[in-house]
């Protein structure tokens, strides 16, 4: 690897176990030298002691642990979300937002960079691949 990848984790979840897993993943993503950024949506669950340790470890090594969840940028964006609306802002048009059924917000329909996914069996995966190739992806 010649360039340092930027990897982002968005935590927007009400399940403490999922939040703790997201923080564990964030630490894991540093293992190949990436710069990791984590953003937590207010109202998300507390991931407990393990999450707190992970956050402290990331901060100790210079990773960002308090980013804006609505403006996450990176080569890779992992969004740990349960689909509950906790007040997400408008979608960043620089990112492809894949919105699973029942998620997202009504105001996002038709917004730049937003692709509403139907049920898995009804997706045009060729078109989806084209969209994925064009921009970093965040799945809601």
């Amino acid at each position: 690897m010649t360039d340092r990848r930027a990897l982002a984790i968005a935590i927007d979840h009400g399940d403490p176990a999922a939040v703790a897993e997201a923080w564990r993943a964030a630490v894991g993503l540093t293992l190949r030298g990436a710069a990791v950024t984590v953003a937590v949506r207010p109202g998300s669950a507390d991931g407990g002691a393990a999450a707190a340790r992970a956050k402290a470890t990331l901060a100790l090594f210079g990773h960002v642990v308090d980013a804006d969840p609505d403006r996450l940028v990176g080569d890779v964006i992992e969004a740990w979300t349960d689909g509950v609306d906790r007040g997400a802002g408008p979608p960043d048009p620089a990112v492809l937002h894949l919105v699973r059924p029942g998620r997202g917000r009504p105001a996002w329909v038709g917004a730049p960079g937003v692709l509403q996914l139907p049920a898995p069996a009804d997706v045009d995966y060729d078109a989806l691949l084209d969209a994925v190739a064009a921009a970093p992806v965040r799945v809601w």
Partner: protein
Amino acid sequence: MTRLGLVLATADDLGYVLGLARAAADRGIEVRLFAMHDGAAALTAPAVATLVDLGCEVVACATTLLRRGLQVPAAVVRGSQDDHAALCAWADRVVAFA
């Protein structure tokens, strides 16, 4: 795009993973999957067989498997968060269902 990374940490999104993997394989795009948390539990034997037949490397987080007492098909590599990081370093694009 020649290398697609897929991350599965949810129980309900395996269908999207399979669809993306099939479409990518049809285009000659290499695919790797890392599964953890609820995604590791979602790895069914038929799905794993399909992914392997498509040439997709399937890695599951061994910590998740151990914590939950999960058994996964033999074709699934028992890996770690280092494999997660490696996938993100390797892929041109990553789609994470988390």
